[in-house]
């Protein structure tokens, strides 16, 4: 093979190694420097540029909300167990199972409303523009997934109706 070609191919390989190494090391360093393990609210401060006073207010709201959220999660988990018990071995949805499902849905709706109230309170503890952005982002994350699922299901159901 031509000597010049060997030199160029070797240089190219070396360049890829240099670039790849630099990229990998920097990504690791960047990731580890910006990660704050144990601080659940780090994202809020970074993303919404909050000062210490705002963070203190949000920290208080967060601390008050967590026990309520945990209590609601326990209720939902207990209700799920009741639904599973009611459905266990049944070949049909019995009235009891239907009742339990309705209660589970009600608990989830209650929990969701509580969560959205918390998001609203947190958004009000931020500067107005950041608060609006936070609220929109949290609604998109927590409710958007439901919308996507429902949309995809309604599209597939529409297709099935079209075929039949």
């Amino acid at each position, binding site marked *: 093979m031509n000597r010049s070609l060997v030199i160029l191919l070797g240089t190219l390989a070396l360049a890829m190694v240099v670039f790849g190494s630099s990229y990998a090391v920097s990504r690791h360093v960047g990731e580890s420097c910006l990660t704050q393990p144990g601080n659940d609210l780090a994202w809020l401060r970074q993303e919404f540029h909050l000062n210490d006073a705002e963070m203190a207010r949000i920290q208080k709201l967060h601390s008050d909300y967590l026990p309520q959220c945990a209590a609601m*999660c326990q209720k939902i988990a207990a209700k799920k167990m009741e639904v599973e018990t009611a459905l266990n071995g049944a070949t049909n949805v019995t009235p009891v199972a239907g009742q339990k499902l309705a209660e589970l849905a009600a608990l989830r709706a209650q929990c969701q409303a509580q969560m959205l109230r918390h998001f609203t309170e947190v958004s009000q503890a931020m500067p107005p523009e950041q608060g609006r952005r936070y609220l929109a982002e949290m609604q998109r994350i927590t409710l958007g*997934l439901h919308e996507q699922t429902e949309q995809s299901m309604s599209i597939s159901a529409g297709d099935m109706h079209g075929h039949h």
Partner: protein
Amino acid sequence: MNKENMNPADEKLSAWLRASRVSPALPPRFQDNVWRRIEDAEAPVPSTSRLVWLDALAALVLRPRFALATVTVLIVAGALLGVRDGSQIARRDAQARYVAVVAPDSLR
């Protein structure tokens, strides 16, 4: 030398010399080698301009100043991209951690 002027003894001598000449044996794979050399000779030669271009580029790459500048650019570009991607990953992780705390999986 004209044949008509040749002495009959010379003719005899010539015939004897011809008969006594030993033809050397052909080397092994003589015919293959001949064909190979013919094919090599007929094969397209890389254009001179391409060779010149490659040589010039190789010479440029081997220049210390050029090599140093290239390595510097590669390191800086890799570092910038790496830091950008690393911060995005850290941001996504932090967001996921917050959402996991405030919005239970059963609601999402």
